[in-house]
């Protein structure tokens, strides 16, 4: 039944998007998250809203881990593309694992901040800065993952996945480049809450997860069909 397991794992992409966004809505990270220019009162106020923030953030920590099964399916199909020396597959696998940690750790940190909101406000602000900058700035693993997937698809003569998926990956990788600017700006469009940082990366990463899931699900169905045909022939 590998097809069924592959299918379930491939649904990890949309599951991450839907559940993480739901968690953030519950916690109040969305629609408007805390920014680098939020006042001390706003930051402390955000984390001291009883169990709602804790519950929402906890849901999102679980949700982002659903990228891991998707990364496994991507690896299986990249292995088919690359054959005997699957170096890009391994690159995607290790960077994919790193992205899982990069997503999980800051959210755990935010949940931890909400655990004891009565502390010295300065500490809460510092912890909040650490959480957000850890969340936004480590883009290199994500970009390497995208480029590895893209190059593997373009080098694949059998077209296991459609070639446009490679170009979508390159575009997503490019869209992460402004994120490092979050270190340099305390407000405006290039601060961590800005349109070119949080909102752009959120949008394109969601596009990445959904495109990969949809195209992989199609590939899984297509690779299952010949086997079904063989079984029918054998039965006849």
């Amino acid at each position, binding site marked *: 039944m590998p097809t069924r397991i592959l299918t379930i794992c491939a649904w990890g992409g949309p599951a991450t998007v839907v559940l993480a966004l739901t968690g953030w809505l519950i916690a109040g990270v969305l629609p408007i998250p805390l920014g680098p220019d939020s006042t001390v009162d706003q930051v402390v106020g955000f984390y001291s809203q009883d169990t709602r923030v804790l519950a929402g953030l906890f849901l999102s920590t679980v949700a982002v881990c659903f990228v891991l099964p998707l990364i496994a399916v991507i690896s299986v199909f990249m292995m088919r593309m690359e054959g005997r020396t699957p170096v890009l597959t391994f690159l995607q696998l290790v960077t994919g694992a790193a992205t899982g940690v990069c997503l999980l750790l800051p959210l755990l940190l935010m949940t931890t901040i909400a655990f004891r909101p009565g502390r010295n406000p300065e500490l809460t602000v510092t912890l909040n800065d650490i959480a957000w900058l850890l969340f936004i700035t480590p883009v290199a693993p994500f970009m390497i993952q995208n480029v590895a997937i893209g190059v593997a698809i373009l080098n694949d003569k059998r077209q296991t996945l459609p070639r446009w*998926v*490679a*170009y*979508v990956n390159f*575009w997503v990788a490019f869209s992460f480049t402004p994120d490092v600017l979050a270190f*340099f*700006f305390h407000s*405006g*469009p290039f601060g961590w809450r800005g*349109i070119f940082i949080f909102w752009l990366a959120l949008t394109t990463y969601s596009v990445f997860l959904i495109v990969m899931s949809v195209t992989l699900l199609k590939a899984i169905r297509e690779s299952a069909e010949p086997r079904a045909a063989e079984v029918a022939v054998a039965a006849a």
Partner: protein
Amino acid sequence: MSRPDARAREELPDFLWLDEEEGLRSAASLGRSNLTEPSQRHTPGEVGLWIFILGDMTLFGVIFLVFMWERRSDSGVFKASAQQLIQPIGAFNTLVLLLSSYLVVRALFAHRIGRVQAAGRLILGAIGCAGVFAALKVTEYFVEVSEGNTPSTGLFFTFYFVLAGLHLLHVLVGTGLLSAWAVALRKGKQWPSAQRLVEGVAVYWHMVDLLWIAIFTLVYLVCAE
């Protein structure tokens, strides 16, 4: 042309099958003869490439929009800041990139008719242009920073450094792609098999050129008016 997939083909009667093969073959030879009469249906590079090209340009377009929006509320500061930029360097860099684009076009035509040596020289010229552009860009950055204009000086310089920086990143990636083309030429890769790579690189390079023209116009010229 609608190509039936492999499954549908197997269900077709034999004689239709053959017709289909012939049709494909004649279409392929038609594609090869489009040196003289370019086919209307041919997409440069491949269709998927344009997802990246248009996505990339959309992203730059959004940055331009936000830039112009911010300028509305602070046009005096934007004007004063834009006048501190070194316009001659920007203008010269525009010409350098236009020249590189011309060299890329010439190289593509040369490669297509099999003049591999000439194409290789033209590509080296384009890579040289990219080097000149990058060197001047870095010089410009140094001059601005040493005059005290850093990305945190104000919103205008934030956008100047970010836009020029993102563009410079594109130039560096483009230089890598042009080098890949040069390597393919050195290996003697002939036209039909090299077409997708070469056209893709050329399209990407023209996009880099086009984006710089937009940046130069908006940041150096429009804001200084």
